[in-house]
């Protein structure tokens, strides 16, 4: 159960009532070690009296039985997004920033007009001066100066925390010490204002506007370009770099000393990307803070208008190519992925990269709401009716609760309890909904955990029957039963056509050659009524329109001119296109490397590992997390949390990046969407997504990989308020304070990425039988079904959709045992009128899926060739290279046949013809043999050909 299950039990009461799922330890030994630490944490916990145990848990339990209070948005709140930027290893660097600032401000002390120490106390023009001065310094050729000024900029963007420090004289108070028999100075631990961190953040927002005004963004980009080109030095015994590092600051000198001997075997660490991290953090600060409209600062109306303007300007600015480069920031960042992936620049701080890419994409293309409104707009323009907003409807539904009975029933199917008969066996593979034990891929399952679980289950039953006093449940809010389904039903033209065809076949045993869907001649009235209803519910998607249009454009090259709407998505697609597969491949590879128990692949922990920690050791999983006997709250524990948190954040950003791209491309043009989907599928995206979903869900959704006190504004605030001491972890500050009525605990980012991944899965698979089959091959049904336990209606909707798509392949047996799921699909997912997902069984049907895939591929190639060959000649295809099945002459028109032929003697003779090597070598010989040696009797030739000349002249 992650890091602190037992501890959490104390605080939140009995978990078993909270979750139907049992705590379960993951199989990796790292996790076991972590859980070993957890016990120690519990001991600490027990050593101290618990306060308010009498009241707390009961309240908890009353409130716990409800849906997760989860709001699915584009991102979390600004302050939390900021906190996720930093890993806990970077905390020390906050102090470096503060020192840099102090050092910098000291330089003004002996000038004629000394500046006040605190950034906030400067006048506006002094602020401008300081920031411009720092920008100038960032252009210096001395990397040390650049580093320090970048730190200063980061310090300002972090909210110039020293402004919040106490005046110095207040910090020390005297206390009588009995042993020493005298008063000793004691650092007074200051009252921490609970709103302090928020104030820091709000100050940071304010400062970022000042920074933007002074052109910090462009300076940072220029600096980023400077630093990107710095090569990663593989040679370990380079004194140059270490001395460079030590000249930067004393802290790093000690890193270098410590690690000097071990350097040989180490991969890149935090020390290698110090500058990059600072720059990227600063840019990230600016993006999040300037665009955060809900920072809750009390500002005047005029200020507000000004900020709005600045915000819009900033948004435009980010999308522009950066100064002196041809590419916007997004492309610069994406181009950093490949060197990272192939290992030429393994030191790039990957987490910050993906976070930045995500944010830039989000602000360029827009989030979920924007997609929805753009879609509606587009549909309106195309004269199509507007359907429900999926997210809104899904959000308004209460989550459904998977019935316990299903669980019980499935206990019977466990190995040993029921002997499976041969034919049944295959069905069984799908019908075990909680089948994490017997049906999971073998590497993640062990039989012992299965037994354990059964035991737990029995224990639970015991608990319920006797030991616990029954508590009065809160009245379950009566949700009025809906009389109607939440969605309007849909049919497509193809469905209608098929329906009529099968009707004709049934009644007349006759098919029209060219399918005719208009005439209903001779059909009985009931059939005509059915067709009318189908027609009434016909839904034409934008994609269908686009496909039809594309076909026309390919066919009538001369008469049809393509109007490409210049949207932002189009612009980005054009820029991404030449390297799309590279980008997707790198992104997916990073995603693979972020699987919690994964130790192979890329090292994604670079922005977290300090040189003291041996990267190789952590990756090889032999880190000794047990050695910290003194305090389990210390390093090893922190590191384990940090690593998990780091990976979760990467996954969160990546899932969002991929989904944003897919959704926006879908809206823009269907073939752009198909192209990116193919790229994802080709790099094994589907099994990867399933692998992520196939974890202990509840543990994942409720992971506690977060140390509240160490998060960004809090720890900085604490640092300056308490005489430059970092917060000491106690059980009180380790978690964000939550009100006892706050409902069940969950980790926002994990729920968020789970939803994203399921949505992505749906997008990849929908309407493509071969990919649905893939879902079957990877046994996704039990995985998905387990996820249904998470009580978030949006998540459930997308899961049900995914199950519905494959239900026809799951077979009757599965449906029989999963009636609850089937009825949930019925009541929650949109119906397609002629789709008999609930009853048909296609297990054995074979279909030529290859053909389907190739067809799409050919269409994409044509689309690219037509639209983008003028930008990237490599996309031009020979028309005959990609014959479309069922093509006729018109589809094979080659534009080059219509190019005018050059028959002017002057220009033909004027052509520069390059002669081949063979020709050059042999032409003398040829001349000799064919011309000089050949004896031609010219007179005779003239006489013999005399007649021709006359003939021509006459």
């Amino acid at each position, binding site marked *: 159960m992650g890091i602190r299950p037992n501890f959490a039990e104390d605080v939140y009461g009995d978990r078993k009532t909270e979750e139907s799922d049992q705590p379960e330890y993951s199989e990796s030994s790292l996790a076991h070690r972590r859980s070993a630490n957890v016990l120690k944490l519990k001991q600490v916990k027990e050593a101290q009296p618990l306060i308010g145990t009498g009241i707390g848990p009961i309240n908890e339990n009353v409130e716990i039985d409800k849906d997760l209070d989860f709001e699915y948005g584009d991102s979390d709140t600004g302050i939390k997004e900021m906190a996720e930027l930093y890993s806990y290893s970077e905390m020390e660097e906050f102090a470096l920033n503060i020192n840099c600032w102090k*050092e910098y401000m*000291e*330089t*003004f002390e*002996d*000038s*004629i007009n000394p500046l006040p120490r605190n950034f906030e106390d400067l006048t506006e*023009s002094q602020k*401008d*001066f300081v920031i*411009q*001065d720092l*920008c*100038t310094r960032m*252009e*210096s*050729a*001395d990397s040390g*100066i650049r580093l320090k000024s970048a730190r200063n900029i980061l310090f300002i963007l972090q909210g110039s925390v020293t402004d919040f420090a106490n005046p110095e004289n207040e910090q020390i108070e005297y206390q009588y010490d009995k042993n020493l028999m005298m008063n000793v100075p004691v650092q007074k631990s200051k009252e921490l204002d609970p709103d302090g961190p928020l104030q820091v953040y709000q100050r940071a927002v304010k400062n970022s506007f000042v920074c933007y*005004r*002074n*052109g910090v963004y*462009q*300076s940072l980009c*220029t*600096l980023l*370009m*400077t630093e*990107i*080109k710095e090569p990663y030095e593989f040679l370990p015994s380079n004194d140059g770099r270490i001395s460079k590092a030590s000249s930067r600051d004393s802290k790093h000198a000690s890193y270098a000393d410590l690690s000097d001997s071990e350097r040989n075997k180490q991969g890149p660490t935090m020390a290698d990307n110090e500058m990059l991290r600072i720059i990227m953090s600063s840019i990230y600060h600016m993006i999040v803070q300037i665009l955060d409209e809900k920072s809750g600062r009390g500002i005047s109306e005029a200020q507000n208008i000004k900020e709005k*303007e600045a915000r819009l*300007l900033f948004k*435009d*600015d980010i999308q*522009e*190519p950066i*100064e*002196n*480069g*041809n590419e916007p920031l997004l492309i610069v960042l994406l181009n950093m992925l490949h060197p990272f992936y192939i290992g030429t620049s393994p030191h790039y701080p990957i987490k910050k990269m993906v976070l930045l890419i995500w944010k830039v994409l989000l602000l360029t293309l827009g989030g979920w709401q924007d997609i929805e409104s753009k879609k509606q707009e587009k549909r309106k323009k195309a004269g199509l009716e507007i359907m429900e907003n999926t997210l809104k409807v899904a959000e308004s539904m209460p989550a459904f609760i998977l019935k316990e009975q299903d669980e019980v029933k499935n206990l019977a199917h466990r190995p040993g309890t029921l002997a499976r008969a041969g034919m049944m066996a295959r069905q069984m593979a799908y019908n075990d909904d909680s089948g994490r034990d017997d049906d999971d891929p073998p590497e993640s399952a062990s039989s012992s955990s299965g037994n354990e679980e059964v035991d737990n289950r029995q224990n639970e039953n015991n608990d319920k029957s006797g030991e616990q006093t029954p508590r009065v449940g809160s009245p379950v809010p009566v949700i009025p039963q809906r009389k109607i389904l939440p969605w309007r039903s849909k049919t497509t033209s193809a469905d209608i056509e098929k329906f009529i065809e099968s009707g004709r076949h049934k009644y007349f045993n006759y098919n029209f050659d060219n399918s005719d869907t208009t005439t209903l001649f001779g059909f009985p009235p009931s059939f005509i009524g059915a067709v009318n209803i189908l027609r009434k519910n016909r839904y034409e998607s934008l994609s269908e329109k686009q496909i039809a249009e594309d076909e026309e454009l390919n066919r009538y090259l001369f008469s049809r001119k393509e109007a490409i709407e210049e949207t932002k998505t189009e612009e980005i697609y054009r820029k991404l296109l030449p390297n799309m597969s590279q980008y997707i491949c790198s992104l997916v590879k990073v995603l693979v490397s972020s699987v919690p128990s994964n130790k192979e692949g890329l090292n994604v922990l670079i922005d977290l590992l300090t040189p003291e920690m041996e990267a190789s050791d952590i990756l090889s999983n032999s880190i000794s997390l047990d050695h910290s006997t003194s305090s389990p709250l210390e390093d090893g524990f922190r590191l384990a949390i940090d690593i998990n948190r780091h990976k979760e954040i990467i996954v969160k950003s990546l899932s969002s990046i991929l989904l944003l791209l897919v959704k926006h491309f879908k809206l823009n043009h269907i073939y752009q969407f198909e192209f990116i989907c193919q790229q994802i599928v080709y790099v094994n995206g589907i099994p990867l997504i399933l692998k992520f979903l196939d974890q202990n869900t509840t543990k994942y959704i409720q992971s506690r990989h977060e140390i509240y006190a160490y998060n960004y504004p809090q720890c900085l605030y604490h640092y300056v308020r308490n005489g430059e001491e970092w917060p000491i972890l106690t059980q009180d500050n380790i978690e964000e304070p939550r009100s006892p009525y706050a409902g069940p605990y969950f980790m926002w980012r994990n729920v968020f990425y789970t939803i994203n991944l399921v949505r992505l899965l749906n997008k990849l698979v929908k309407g493509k039988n071969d990919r649905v089959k893939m879902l079957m091959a990877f046994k996704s049904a039990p995985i998905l079904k387990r996820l249904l336990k998470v009580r978030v209606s949006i998540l459930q909707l997308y899961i049900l959709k995914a199950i519905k798509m494959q239900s026809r392949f799951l077979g009757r047996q599965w449906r029989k045992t999963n009636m609850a799921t089937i009825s949930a699909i019925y009541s929650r997912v949109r119906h397609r009128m002629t789709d008999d997902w609930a009853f048909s069984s296609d297990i054995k049907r074979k279909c030529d899926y290859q053909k389907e895939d190739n067809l799409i591929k050919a269409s994409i190639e044509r689309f690219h060739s037509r639209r983008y060959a003028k930008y990237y000649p490599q996309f031009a295809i020979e028309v005959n290279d990609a014959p479309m099945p069922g093509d006729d002459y018109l589809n094979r028109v080659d534009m080059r046949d219509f190019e005018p032929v050059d028959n002017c003697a002057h220009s033909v003779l004027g052509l520069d013809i390059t002669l081949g090597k063979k020709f050059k070598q042999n032409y003398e010989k040829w001349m000799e043999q064919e011309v000089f040696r050949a004896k031609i009797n010219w007179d005779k030739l003239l006489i013999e050909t005399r007649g021709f000349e006359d003939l021509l002249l006459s």
Partner: protein
Amino acid sequence: MTATAERRVIRRNGPGTKREDWNNWPPLAFEEMDTALNIQQYIQQLIKANPSDVDAILTPPVDQDEGVWKYEHLRQFCIELNGLALLLQRECVPDTCQQMTATEQWIFLCAAHKNPNECPAIDYTRHTLDGAASLLNSNKYFPSRISIKELSISKLGSIARRVYRIFSHAFYHHKKLFDDFENETHLCKRFTTYVTKYNLMQQDHLIVPILPSQQQQLSAAANQANLPNAAIVSPQKS
């Protein structure tokens, strides 16, 4: 039309123009300038009339859009700075001035490259002027010379900052050349007044003491600290 006595003065330097006729046409009142590039024409006319009258040159006509005014001036500075660059070319060679420095504490990276790097001073000068020219003429940021986008105006500051380094380099390393150029054109003085007036650069960064106020400050600081230049250049402690 009646006001202009001479009919149809062609304000162009045609091919084969003699030296004494170069740019030699009678001044025209601003209201009379009916071309799209009237601001530039007006500024150049003022400069030609008296380059030392910095204030007059920098005083915009009434109702003049400030963004355009700033833009056109910066353009003009870049044009005229080419003259300084040309002079510098003679004696500022990569062998003597390997880096772009003014006072010894500062060496600058040349930001005109995709990945900024260190260039010799003369290359820095050329690159920066080229970069400034292409930015000021870029269709993207400055599509119109009649109205200028807010976003683009913010670019002027960084151009000014980089261009100024050419002055400071010339002043600290090629003093004689700088003085000759300055006596003739008063460009640095005008530039300093310009950036101060429109707050494009902060006082402390203007390290060439060219305005009377700056010179006073310098001498005051020298008296105070007995160290020349100490206050003007924010000292950088290593």
